[in-house]
């Protein structure tokens, strides 16, 4: 990969760093808990 492409790759990763290093919002854990509980309830 040439230096320009490598530089673009480095900067691209920095653009998404913020999202990638955030803890997953709690809504997703709650959602999965709810789905699991629903399934337990129907068994």
């Amino acid at each position, binding site marked *: 990969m040439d*230096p*320009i*492409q*490598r*530089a*673009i*790759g*480095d*900067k*691209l*990763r*920095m*653009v*998404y*760093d*913020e*999202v*990638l*290093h*955030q*803890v*997953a*919002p709690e*809504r*997703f*854990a709650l*959602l*999965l*808990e709810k*789905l*699991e*509980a629903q399934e337990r309830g129907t068994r």
Partner: protein
Amino acid sequence: MTELPAFATDMLREVPRLRAFGASLGGSLSAADDLVQETLVKAWSHRTSFIPGTNLRAWLFTILRNTYRSQRRKLGREIGDDGRFAERLSTPAPQHGHLEILALRVALAKLPVEQREAVVLVGVLGCTYEEAAAVCGAVVGTMKSRVNRARRRLAQLLDMANPSEIGPQGRDLAVLSAPMSEKPGV
């Protein structure tokens, strides 16, 4: 909070990457979160079709992408504002060169979605070309071509014809790639 089954915990671990991929497809981070939510619901209800030991991340990316495309077809248009997410990320990068990153965010928003997803999957989310091709339902050669076109287009949009124009790191690379006689102190 109750303890989640292993499959749910594994999916939860992929959420940051799913959010980044969702955001790259277009729309705000809140639109990406809605996409991730739908992805998790579908993945949970179809989890028996996931083969343990295979690539969960790629499987989830595929569901998210299909969900996005299905929504887009239903709406008959691009969802959200088509890639403006990258342009709108508000936290400035703490490193020097943050202006270049801001410019890259604007440039990313100008790429066709197929090129943006390709370059994000391979360049940001660490997919191999084979994995990215499987996620996007394309052949490997097409994926390589999309990634290359995206990088070239970004270089054009950022006016990066000369590595010396891309900040301190670029200057270092320019020195490294120069003929020996042009290196400082030689």
